[in-house]
């Protein structure tokens, strides 16, 4: 009977990386951490080492010719994961620079073997590897020497049951490099530069026997170290069965008459787009949505990309945030990725067990993203909406929409189809006044009002009033008073004939 070996998986200690790797690092694997200078290889190696090393599972960090060890220790200790109590206990640094100068690859290999035999580490790091390659190239027999070295090292380390990491700078990933073949795992780090923005990305090019998450995953390095933003898994977008939870099927919007226009409120789990020109009252509508949730004992999360919502114009929202009934995701870090925002949103939603999520606004959100993500904004947004839907939240997104009186558009992104409900707001001119009107243009699977309603904004928020039945051509922005003799009905009458 086939009885396959059980491969243990090590948790890397880098948030998000285990998910991208498809469940952690296989024990005894031989891995390559590659990328250009400054992309975070040494940081990644140190972070994993300090997370993985224990008295039973010690680590050796060999430095060859790359960064001088003294400097490496100086800079790496700035990270929170650096634990100097571990040094010379569970973590051992070994400099091989003198061996490299004295005896080249052969002596380096011999020293590595000596140290590994002497200490029996479970984790071995060799930093950096490009220096090894270059120096062997200088010897004029790069491939033979290097291939031999890497194969020997790979074999020895696996036999000694050490999970091994070679850290190397490779500028040309298309190179048929022997190291790539020998390695079980290949983690590539990049810095993607577009215009003035730099985004760090990680790719697991290879990890034997593991369902890794393909593609480029953004990561950030801060005082805590590296943080990979693994994409949220959307398992077939299983709709949440709200009937089973016993919660109300429809959510109140917190604005008089709006629930009525929506046929009784916004169905739970729906995503709604509120589109309108600048200043039309989208953010106020969004705040009312969250306040109504709080009134019903629900919690919410707002991702604010416009003004900071604690400002005077939304004291209700500010209070909800202060009292912890609404979580605020207000990341002003430059060069954001959708995955990073999504991760922040999802963790806030889970922390607060939130049922309502507001994104104010999509326009601000797009601007907050690094330029490299903007061409794929629609795809990413669609993924984000799907991911949030699996969290069971009801979502309201605002979108700035330039008033165009020649056509009827609901969103500048072609995002209208992604959402279940759309409310559109517009300015109109009546009797030399700028008035606002609002309509429900879409509510999937539900009857809703088709009325264009006037609304105004006062100290109590949005006040919806009547239709302007005596005007026509509202969507053109400059309605005209209907013919008092009832021209319209006459025309309808003619059509019928």
């Amino acid at each position: 009977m086939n009885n396959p070996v059980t491969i243990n998986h090590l948790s890397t200690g880098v948030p998000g990386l285990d998910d991208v790797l498809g469940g952690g690092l296989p024990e005894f694997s031989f891995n390559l951490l590659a990328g250009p200078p400054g992309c975070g290889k040494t940081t990644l190696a140190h972070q994993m080492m300090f997370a993985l090393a224990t008295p039973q599972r010690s680590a050796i960090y060999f430095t060859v010719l790359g960064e001088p060890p003294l400097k490496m220790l100086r800079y790496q200790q700035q990270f929170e994961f650096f634990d100097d109590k571990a040094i010379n206990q569970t973590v051992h640094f070994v400099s091989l620079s003198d061996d490299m100068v004295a005896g080249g690859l052969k002596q380096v290999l011999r020293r590595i073997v000596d140290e590994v035999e002497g200490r029996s580490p479970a984790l071995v790091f060799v930093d950096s590897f490009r220096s090894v390659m270059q120096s062997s190239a200088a010897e004029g027999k790069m491939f033979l020497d290097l291939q031999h070295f890497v194969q020997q090292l790979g074999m020895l380390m696996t036999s000694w049951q050490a999970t091994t990491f070679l850290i190397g700078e490779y500028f040309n990933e298309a190179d048929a490099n022997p190291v790539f073949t020998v390695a079980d795992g290949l983690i590539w780090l990049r810095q993607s530069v577009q215009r003035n923005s730099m985004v760090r990305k990680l790719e697991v090019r290879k990890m034997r026997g593991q369902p890794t998450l393909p593609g480029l995953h953004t990561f950030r390095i801060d005082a805590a170290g590296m943080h990979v933003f693994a994409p949220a898994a959307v398992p077939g977008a299983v709709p949440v069965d709200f009937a089973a939870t016993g919660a109300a099927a429809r959510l109140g919007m917190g604005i008089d008459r709006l629930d009525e226009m929506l046929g009784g409120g916004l169905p739970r789990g729906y995503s709604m787009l509120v589109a309108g020109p600048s200043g039309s009252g989208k953010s106020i509508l969004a705040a009312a949505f969250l306040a109504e949730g709080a009134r019903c004992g629900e919690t919410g999360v707002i991702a604010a990309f416009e003004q900071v919502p604690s400002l005077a114009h939304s004291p209700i929202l500010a209070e909800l945030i202060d009292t912890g009934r609404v979580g605020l995701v207000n990341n002003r870090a430059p060069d954001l990725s959708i995955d990073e925002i999504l991760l922040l949103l999802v963790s806030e939603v889970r922390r607060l067990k939130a049922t309502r999520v507001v994104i104010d606004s999509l326009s601000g959100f797009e601007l907050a993203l690094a330029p490299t993500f903007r061409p794929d904004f629609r795809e990413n947004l669609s993924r984000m909406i799907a991911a949030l839907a699996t969290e069971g939240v009801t979502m309201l997104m605002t979108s700035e929409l330039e008033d165009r009186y020649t056509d009827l558009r609901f969103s500048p992104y072609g995002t209208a189809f992604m959402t279940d409900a759309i409310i559109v707001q517009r300015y109109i001119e009546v009797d030399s006044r700028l008035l606002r009107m609002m309509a429900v243009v879409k509510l999937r699977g539900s009857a809703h009002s088709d009325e264009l309603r006037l609304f105004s904004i006062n100290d109590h928020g949005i006040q919806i009033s009547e239709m302007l039945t005596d005007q026509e051509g509202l969507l053109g922005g400059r309605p005209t008073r209907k013919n008092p003799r009832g021209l319209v009905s006459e025309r309808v009458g003619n059509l019928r004939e």
Partner: protein
Amino acid sequence: MESQQSHRIVLTLVQRASDGVGAPELADFIVSAWQTIEVSLTPIIGQSSVATLYKRSCYLASRKHAWLMDIHDGMQTTMNLAAFKTALLGQTSTEIAAGAGAALQMFYEVLTNLVGASLTERLLQSVWAGLLAAPAQDKSA
């Protein structure tokens, strides 16, 4: 707090000198301290880094103890402790204690500046343990 510890090195050596420990014994003791430093640090930061830090420490200490200047001429990739010992033996016990103590203190401080107090403490644990504990015991014996 850490600089207090490095200051204790100087005090310990000065104490030993004033207790009448002879120049050869004091020189041996100091050389063995540097040997411990070399053994502790070379595997981690490499031989030439240790030699460079040693040279830098002697240079800094030579501002007050000019004789330390003479021993580190030219480029060094290893610590030449034989030459150091010869230089030590040319001095009185008091000057050995003061000068060599200052060099050790500088080494401690330079390393602290580079990698921080707690890591320095950890890396040089065995060195200071020997330096600060042994003399008192020797004396009482």
